[in-house]
């Protein structure tokens, strides 16, 4: 009797084992309180030799791909920290592109559009200078420089240069006199200056970076992770990281550790707090931005 029951039990158990191969249902978690650390990563330079965007780590529009704009006025207060030494600059940059006149490389890819000067641009009553806009791009393995045309520029650094000063947490008055056309005048708010600090550590040969900055909960905040090629001055902006302006970000270690010391000798973090304005005063196809950039450079050892 017992042995028969045992057999029945064992057979039942085996049948259940075979039939019961499910596993308990998972629970989905939703981030309804936005408590997770927001990290959106975008590749900026697809070609490692392409210097199209890298017109200087301390200049305006460091990561603005002007191919996306028809008209752009970029007002930037920059703080550069390198080896505990800070440099502050102010830049006003303006460019208008004729999107009917693309400039292509030898593979017929658009690398830009011809620029033009539609009139006079004044920033805080300072007339912007007109200068050639030169880009560098990689073509058939060779770095080439080309001029797209002219652009507007005001630059002041180390107490020298143009009289334009970027005042943070304030506003900047922009006056545009198109030829022909009526004068347009508008103001744009400037953000609170972003001042960051980076705690860089190494554990088991892996780099870890925790960024802290003065949180302002601004709507547009991003961090550009770039690197400086060995033996060269120019910085490649590699990745754009969009995150909340909450004062703290742990850089995904994989991004950091992908920057090889074989190719690069410095790592660059640019914290950017930005205010944007589209089509001010009804000026079509014009985008105006004011931004605070704090760029911190660390040597890779």
């Amino acid at each position, binding site marked *: 009797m017992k042995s028969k029951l*045992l057999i029945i039990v064992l057979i039942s158990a085996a049948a259940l084992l075979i039939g019961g191969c499910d596993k308990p249902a998972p629970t989905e978690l939703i*981030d309804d309180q936005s408590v997770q*650390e927001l*990290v959106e990563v975008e590749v900026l330079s697809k070609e490692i030799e392409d210097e199209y965007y890298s017109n200087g780590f301390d200049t305006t529009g460091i990561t603005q791909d002007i191919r996306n704009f028809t008209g752009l006025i970029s007002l930037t207060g920059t703080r550069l920290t390198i080896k505990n030494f800070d440099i502050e600059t102010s830049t006003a940059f303006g460019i208008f592109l004729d999107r009917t006149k693309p400039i292509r490389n030898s593979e017929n890819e658009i690398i830009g559009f011809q620029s033009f000067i539609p009139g006079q641009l004044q920033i805080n009553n300072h007339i912007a200078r007109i200068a050639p806009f030169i880009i560098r791009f990689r073509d058939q393995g060779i770095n080439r420089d080309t001029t797209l045309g002219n652009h507007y520029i005001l630059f002041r650094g180390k107490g020298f240069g143009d009289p334009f000063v970027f005042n943070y947490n304030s506003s900047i008055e922009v006056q545009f006199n198109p030829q022909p056309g009526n004068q347009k005048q508008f103001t744009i708010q400037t953000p609170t200056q972003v001042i960051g600090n980076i705690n860089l550590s190494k554990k088991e040969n892996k780099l870890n970076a925790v960024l802290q900055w003065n949180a302002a909960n601004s709507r547009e905040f991003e961090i550009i992770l770039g690197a400086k090629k060995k033996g060269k001055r120019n910085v490649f902006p590699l990745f754009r990281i969009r995150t909340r302006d909450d004062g703290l970000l742990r850089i995904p270690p994989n991004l950091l550790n992908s920057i090889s010391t074989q190719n690069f000798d410095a790592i660059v973090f640019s914290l950017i707090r930005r205010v944007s304005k589209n089509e001010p005063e009804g000026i079509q196809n014009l985008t105006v931005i004011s931004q605070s950039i704090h760029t911190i450079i660390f040597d890779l050892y």
Partner: protein
Amino acid sequence: MRFKLLLILLVSFYLSKNGIAQNSFGFSGLMNSTNNISSLYGNYEASQINFSQLKDWGFSFIYGPEFSSSVNLNIYSIAVEKRFSNHILSLRYTPGYQKEFNFNTASAIILSDSTRQSLSSKFSYKELFGLGYYFRFSDELQAGFNLRYFSQEFSREIISPVIADTIYLVRENQSEKLGLWKGELGFNYSFSQYFSAGISSINLFSFSEDPFDQELEKFKLKTEKGVMLTFNFSPSRTFGLSGIIESNKSFQIGVNGRITFSNSSVGIGCSVFHDKTQSPFIAGVIPSVNFSTSFLSVSLSGIKYFSDRKDYFSYGDFENNGITNVINNPYSFDKALLTIAFALNTIQEKKVEFADVKIIEDIYPALTENYLNKPFAVATVVNVSDERVNVKPFSRINGLSEELIYSPIISINPGDTATISYFTVIPENYAITKSEISTADFYILTSNEEFDDQIQKPVLVNGVNSWDGDVINLKYFIKKSFDFSISYSKRILSNNKTLFDTLENRLSDFYKTKLIYNSFAEAMVYVSDPRASSEYVQYPEETLKLKGGDCDDLSVCLSSLLESVGVATALVDYQLGELRHVNLLVNTKLSPSEAGLITSNENKYLIRKNNLGNDEIWIPLEATSLKRFEDSWQAGAEKFNKDALENYGLSRGSVQIIDVY
């Protein structure tokens, strides 16, 4: 012991400051608190001592559906337990003790066309297996210890850049698996058959690996320490009340009832629980029904949570609180469970046991059939099972016989005590003359397999000539070596064939007696016992060969010689203070009217009724006089008249007549 319990209580009070979730949660609720096989559920959560009912091997598994937005069938656990005397080892494999969380992280890759590719994560908590150990200090105090191994796997998609000639981002799966060992210790004390209480640790110790990514530390299973107190109150076999309270004030309480049939029982129970990490206050209910036999238990139970168990929950809550319990947490779903436990006894289960065994009589091998009706030992036996059992007692006296001697079977009700008599059989060829202290093995058996209990007692086995002093038992000596007596007596009678040819038949027994006595008396001398003990009796054959003996020996021998030729005899036991004497009465089979044929003296005979109610003439003989028959008769008659009649020996009981047959 009290000090230790006090110490544990103090520790529990200290630990109660820590907040912990309900750790005592088990799939079977508190149904297993009743004393039946359902205790084999392998429930490490509610108690560390829940295998106490196990006799030998135990197997159990829990299977059932879980009700989320879909229905998933799971095998929750498979457990095996084995008892070794007071120790029990158990092993539990828990494939269904797991909880998985899926979520999309806030991290994403922005592609070149500005589309967003989110990264997902999967956190998985599993209890893989457990090892349990139970020890029974006494009927009242038991202790249990278990060790459980958990696996925590944190699998996350991460952004992985590839920097070669071109730069691009890929999603890469990064996984960290952390092991966790948890150990618990518990004690249970039965204050009476109705009430028991226990104390068990919660996370007495835990060893966990540290994650490489410190961010994951907060997602590890919480292992705050605590204690739980348990109680079980069963005022009857049909009703029980159980409860568990944890040091963070989480608790579980259950009632159960049970109807017992002859070989099975049906139980119904219901537990409710309050878990500090869950809402509402009574977080859920665990109803269960159970059918049990002595070796099989089938239970159907369910877990119903009173809060809404959605398929999705807040990541923020999960991040802040984590989970403590894999199978019972705010994210657990309702379940139905089938639990089957099976007990396999390869060793005989003890149903009865000796309370005591008393040797009531030393063994006198000469008394042979005496032991067929008269026990030499009595035992007190207790039925420790929960069923009526038939007990087959048997014994063996070492040195007397190799055979097992069975006593009559008796039935004992559950929990009852009975007295069992043990008998023995003296082998016919037993011939050891020396008395010695031997041992007797006593057994009780309730099945056809091994005995339930055994006990050994010392017993005095006397020599074959030893006599217990009871004259009635001299007949066993008389009957021994009857063939020799027949041969001896017939030889005497045949030598006097002429006499018997001419003798009236009615005087036959009288003259047989006279001839045999005279022949006997001529050959014999009176000799005291060789050991100066009255308890040494020679067999007739020995007496005739030795040509002498004391009153016992001579009376036994003469009786044997007469009985062997059909002359009925009786022993007369004179017990006069410290003095004791035995002689004979011989049945002449003459009627009182025929008394004159042998004597004219009425004082030389007595009249006794035979089985038919007829009066017969009996004459006393003093076997020790060893003179002529008439002298012996005279001596016997005088002694009988004086001690048995004149001194009222027969009335007072100091003189007894014992018929040999």
